[in-house]
């Protein structure tokens, strides 16, 4: 098996060889080696590039991992599992999923028999007045949205609260901190539009979720994982899923190509709706 692979790789190299006879006939071993090294370098660059590009299809498989977990548990709830979920390696780690057979018996319903009661539905009237007369809220909502937009325009620079500073200084390499701040802002300004924060939960702290994200050079998501997606706290899980939807929905991200090494991994990508909730 390995033999045949090495054979084929050798064969693949062969086409690049045409230059070789010429160099050997050239002035000397030094030039030959130099040319060879150049060729090797070019080859190497090509190889790395194509390798990077190759990661796309490969890494697309990763989200499938997430699928498998939820899928599997849920599928037990119903008859045949949806076919396109081949890998079923990860079985445990979802203790909180709905119990297998989600059979719920809705009884004939305790619709109370109402004795000597006039049943007068007057459905016409209901139909007559289908639209709420005056609707002040849209304006209010528009204001809120606008306010959110304004906040977003002004806020990002001052956003990092205490929690943020830690990881960044630890992970940054010297001047990289200041250098990557603009990248973080660029990413935030794109992802914020897709993120519908799960406001309204009783405990806002349940809603802060961290993702570990790997990006492809084209700005698409190679992988986005978070423990919170399988949290036992239903609010946290919902928050993590909302964040995950945002991450995938807003891709590909427009970030400077030449600095890919600075944004190929984002960890943590934190979603923190606490400021928004107390507005």
């Amino acid at each position, binding site marked *: 098996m390995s033999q045949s692979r090495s054979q084929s790789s050798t064969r693949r190299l062969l086409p690049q060889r045409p230059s070789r006879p010429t160099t050997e006939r050239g002035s000397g071993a030094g030039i030959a080696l130099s040319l060879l090294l150049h060729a090797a370098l070019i*080859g190497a660059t090509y190889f790395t590039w194509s390798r990077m590009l190759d990661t796309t299809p490969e890494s697309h498989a990763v989200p499938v991992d997430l699928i498998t977990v939820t899928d599997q548990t849920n599928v037990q709830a119903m008859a045949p599992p949806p076919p396109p979920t081949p890998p079923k390696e990860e079985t445990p780690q979802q203790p909180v999923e709905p119990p297998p057979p989600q059979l719920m018996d809705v009884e004939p319903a305790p619709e109370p028999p109402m004795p000597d009661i006039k049943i007068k539905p007057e459905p016409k009237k*209901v139909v007559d007045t289908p639209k709420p007369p005056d609707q002040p809220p849209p304006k209010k909502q528009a204001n809120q949205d606008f306010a959110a937009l304004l906040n977003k325009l002004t806020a990002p620079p001052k956003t990092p609260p205490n929690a943020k500073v830690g990881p960044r200084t630890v992970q940054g390499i010297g001047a990289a901190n200041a250098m990557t701040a603009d990248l973080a802002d660029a990413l935030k300004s794109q992802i914020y539009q897709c*993120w519908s924060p799960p406001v309204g939960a009783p405990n806002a702290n349940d809603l802060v979720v961290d993702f570990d994200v790997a990006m492809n050079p084209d700005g698409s998501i190679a992988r986005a994982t978070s423990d919170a997606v399988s949290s036992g706290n239903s609010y946290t899980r919902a928050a993590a899923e909302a964040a995950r939807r945002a991450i995938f929905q807003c891709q590909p991200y427009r970030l400077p190509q030449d600095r890919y090494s600075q944004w190929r*991994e984002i960890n943590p990508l934190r979603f923190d*709706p606490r400021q928004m909730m107390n507005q």
Partner: protein
Amino acid sequence: MRKLLLVCALFLAAALAPLPAAAALSVDVTQGNAQPLPIAIPDMISADPAQATMGANIASVVRADLTRSGLFRSIDPKAFVERITNINVAPTFQSWRAINAQGLVAGQVTLQPDGRLRVDFRLWDVYGESQMLGQQFFTQPENWRRVAHLVSDAIYERVTGEKGYFDTRIVFVSESGPATKRVKRLAVMDEDGANPIFLTRGDYMVLTPRFNPTAQMIAYMSYIATKPHIYLFDLETGRQEELGNFPNMTFSPRFSPDGNRVALVLENGGNSDVYVMDLRSRAVMRLTTDPAIDSAPSFSPDGRQITFESDRGGSKQIYVMNADGSNQRRISFGAGENGTPVWSPRGDLIAFTKQLGSHFTIGVMRPDGSGERMLTNAYHDEGPTWAPNGRVLMFTREASNNRGSQIWSIDVTGRNEQRVMTPGDASDPAWSPLIQ
């Protein structure tokens, strides 16, 4: 051969070189764009054409439920690219992403040999390409609306993390007739306004109906006798009975969370105080004793505390005490007068009515009085009641020129204010718990 090895080594070095340079970027997203979740809910399919209408009806109720919550946006079925033909096969996610659906509900209705209706559905995460939920329900075909509400509740809970409230009912006072001779009848309807039923004939006035925790019993105040008293209405049997045998007026009833007690107000010589009655022993305990007007008691969800309104401090304000009457303390210190406090079933907030001049609005505050937030801003809103999940409020809205009253609802975030459709004018809504 050696050169070949060298080339291979160089390849390897070049391939590995960029890796160590990478350091993770950390990003903190603190601002978002609160939007309803776009969800596609095609008509539920059925192998039997006779059930096709049923599948369409159920889907349309689910669409209406989720849209009404303000947290979902049902995508117009006309935009759908893919047609669901088998709910046990994963959909083509790409074609649902194309119409910006983030969630997809694929359902199926089947008439069982025993005459029952079976409803299966799956909720798909279109971007995550995974199934979020799969359930099935059995019921008599005439209960299809309830099944639809149960499906809505399941979807709502799975996506938001909190229980739904669609399979609930509203009891309210239905009003009709001229202002001088207003007829007020007790009525119940489903949370979406369907199936309205009148419980009383309107011979006597009714006020402040409240559900018990099983949604089978309603306590309300009525002028059946010369003086208004609290009555209990059993929805199962239709039987009514006066609660207790008090010589004076009783009003403002509210069940304890375990359903075994009723807090109420007893008037005595112009002084009203909060009492609590044990429904089994009918024993009554007085909780407040001061000469001011104490009223509108409401239990905390753990049953250990009661919030109420009192004008003992000179103006009507909100107070909290232990369920035995001890440790009475004022919690509202904001502007104006504050009354009709109602403790959220979630425990985190107390909703109330604030009166500023001739203006009545609905607000919420924490049980310690902090974090006061006004939710509505109309001429006259009052009497809030909580959805069982503590996320939505209903209240009475009166038009400025005596044009009658309506029931409205609003999200606790202050968004999604909308009218609740009732047959005719309506006031004093009370939300039931989730139907058992």
